């Protein structure tokens, strides 16, 4: 049995790994780590991987900053991404927090470290926009949960998020209608959407969720819905495969979201999946 497989025994053992780099975005990562720790009942453990060619006098004193946030700091050496993925995979770690990019000016895709950690880790990874401290003071309770309505993606959210979070959240499910998921008939649109939405929630969503609908390009609509006045964080399940034709929503949200993005890995890629009846198809004899 590897460290990955050992069950977390109690709340006391639970840890969030905060991946810290000596840049102006470090405070955002620490703030997010603290907020994530509050909703997961975990402690925060800071990790910095010192690169061989790092400047001898970095602009940010990570030790002092971590101490300010009450976070113990471990300094490792080695290849950054591999070292972080290894640390995140250890027993007791329930998730990780990493900065989206190392510069405050946004509008770019997430940096290579954030993407590597998100792709390489089997734990939930929270990707934090660099200016988080400007938009959120916590505690986090409002969570945006875009769902496409497949069993695979919904279960990933229900299972992983359900075991990760220990406080009562206010989930808002977002479903973007596409030509394949839009209800084929809306006799009385707002009423039928209520019924359709209730059924979607019953089949796919966490308890206590409400639902909002959008139409259009899913990646664009989800990214647009990520606003600090609507949610504290957004949760996305994904296959951990980044390619031009894959994970479009994840890529767009990482690029544009002003709120943290919690990425939940789907089950292991080669595990058998089971199709659930989508809302709108339910054969009876």
């Amino acid at each position, binding site marked *: 049995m590897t460290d990955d497989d050992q069950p977390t025994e109690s709340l006391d053992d639970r840890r969030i790994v905060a991946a810290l780099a000596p840049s102006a975005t470090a405070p955002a990562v620490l703030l997010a780590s603290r907020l994530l720790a509050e909703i997961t009942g975990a402690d925060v453990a800071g990790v910095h991987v010192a690169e061989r060619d790092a400047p001898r006098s970095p602009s940010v004193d990570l030790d002092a900053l971590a101490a300010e946030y009450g976070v113990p700091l471990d300094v490792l050496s080695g290849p950054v991404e591999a070292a972080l993925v290894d640390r995140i995979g250890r027993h007791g770690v329930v998730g990780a927090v990493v900065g989206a990019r190392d510069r405050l000016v946004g509008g770019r895709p997430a940096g290579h470290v954030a993407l590597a950690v998100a792709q390489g880790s089997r734990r939930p990874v929270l990707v934090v926009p660099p200016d988080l401290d400007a938009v959120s003071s916590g505690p986090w309770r409002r969570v945006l949960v875009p769902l496409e309505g497949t069993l695979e993606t919904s279960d990933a959210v229900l299972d992983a998020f359900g075991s990760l979070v220990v406080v009562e959240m206010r989930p808002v499910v977002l479903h973007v209608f596409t030509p394949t998921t839009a209800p084929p008939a809306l*006799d009385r649109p707002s009423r039928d959407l209520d019924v359709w939405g209730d059924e979607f929630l*019953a089949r796919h969503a966490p308890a206590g969720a409400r639902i909002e*609908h959008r*139409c259009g390009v899913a990646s664009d609509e989800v990214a647009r819905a990520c606003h600090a006045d609507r949610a504290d964080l957004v949760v996305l399940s994904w296959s951990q495969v980044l390619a031009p034709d894959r994970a479009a929503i994840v890529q767009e949200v990482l690029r544009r979201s002003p709120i943290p993005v919690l990425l939940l890995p789907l089950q292991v890629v080669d595990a058998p999946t089971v199709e659930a009846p989508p809302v709108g198809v339910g054969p009876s004899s």
Partner: protein
Amino acid sequence: MTSTASVHLDPAWTVELPTDPRLERVAESLGALSNGYVGTRASWEEPGPGATPLVVVQGVYAGRDDPQRIHGPIWTTVDVARATEPARRLLDLRGGVLVRLGTGDDPPSLRFVSAHRPHAMAMRFEIGSEHAAAAGTRSEIADGGDDGRRITEATSGCHDEIVVRTSERVTRHGARVTVERIACCVGGTGPEDRRGEATERLAELDAIGFDRLLAEHRTAWARRWESATVSIAGDPEMERACRFAVFHLLAAARGNGEMGVGARGLTGRAYGGHVFWDADVFVLPVLAALDPPAARAMLEYRIRRLPAARRAAARSGRRGARFPWESADTGDDVTPRSGVNAHGRRVPILTGEREEHITADVAWSVCEYVAWTGDHEVLTGEGRALVMDTARYWSSRCEMDADGRAHIRGVIGPDEYHELVDDNAFTNVMARWNLRRAAAGATLGDATAAEVGNWLRLADALVDGHDAATGRYEQFAGYWDLEPLMAADVHDAEMFAADVLLGVERTRAAQVIKQADVLMLHHLVPDEVASGSLEANLDHYLPRTSHGSSLSPAVHAALLARANRADEALTLFRTAARLDLDDRTGSTAGGLHLATMGGTWQALSSGFLGLRALHDGLHLDPHLPRPWRTLTLSCWYHGQILTIRATHHDVAITCEHEFTAFVRGVAGRCVPGRTTFQIGDHP
């Protein structure tokens, strides 16, 4: 005592509910039981997550601005843990019973809502080996009192509007436990002593006993099916789907008092029990043929709300009576004024103000009822006043132009993708029909000669959008100028919501439509449209129809069959007949689509059989699709039960009393017994 082990289920009369837990709420709707007075969803007896049990009573609402049906106490819960393997539940359509099969040798459980005694519901629940492993997690079922019975009572509503009183007996047979529960439901909004009434009635029901109540119920259903037969040789799947539709239609209303049949009947929460044109156009005409007293009660609902309709007309500065788009208990319009659309935006809902064709639809339903039943008495008194006052409404609604043509502007037709249009063909032609019908039936005292003359002049002057050269009707003024977008240009699915995929603005600017609009005229008032124009309008509008409404497929199936395109009709017919069974719309969890079920029967009757009740008699013009060897329907017509059996070559009518039928336009006498008319092969 009748053993529950002796339940025999004929597959041709049985619908099995889905067992997938994610489809639980769909299953609850499919297996809902009702009797026109009370309805109960098919929720599992054992409590568990995801269930949406429901008990509702016809006509019992709460709330003023947005009245919603009150939910009654749930009487079907048994406090045992759910078995690990879900049981099978089967709806016995012939007997009107929901059967739950146990595992191994365990006898089945039964549940029914009495078709004979409106306040009575009952269940016999067998707790067998499937629960044995889980039984330790729940408290033991409480035994009955000294006489073995345990009485419970629960109420709901601020003023105990719904009372459910139950009498339960628990018996043990070795490891097995049988819970037999008789329930009495009394609902209403008046000051009556419903608890006292429930107590009295339950005592009567208890004295009758479960087995006799079940026998009465089964006998009542057997009697119903005598006049509601559906038989399709060559298509057992459609036969069963049609029987499923007829079952729920018959269960939706009863022939007593008034019946405001909501769009989802008594099967679910959706729409809060509000009544739409669904009832008048798709349910009432069917029940006029299958259960005339129930149809009469549906008419009574509208007739009793004629005063409210008159007030509505006056409030909008018109004369006569204007019926509401959405109706509940008072007869006032209860359409919400805004809602959130698929794009997440709050938008105004204009149907309450502007979808006015319902006023003519209600008048049409009165006349359709009379045509089927021969009950002309309804056209005396307030029934007649309804036809007159709705005509008055249209006469005050029309605007005359300088050329002497009459217009009705700023309405919404059945196609709700295009709002606030002028001279919607459906609205105008239905208004014209209404004016002419009122004029034809008016006598001294109803209206002055001048008023009647004015109705006829207006009817002749109303613009209807008909182009004599092509035979087509322009759906509304300016429709031909819209982007000629076909449904197939938008999506290759048979049914889709065009406004969701294209956006509201683009859809509004295009010719793609939601559902039958012009074609509804051919469906309801074919004598009001140009003779021979069906084909031209089918060819034009069908490719432009997205069927973004559950009402659409059945109507098109009926019209395609009438146009001798029966094979083409069958595809859409299958969609309509299985709409809820397959949860095609994603909203069956909220209740069954009664109008689609009514449309399915209409497709069978007026479509494939070409069956119509007209002023001069009963008309038939069968066109069966190739896979069907025979189609047999039973129905009431002018006080007698007819059985009509059509093949590709002939049609046989079985009746009790002699009458004249028109088969493909040729009059023939039907004598008591069976009369067969040759119709030859497809022309």
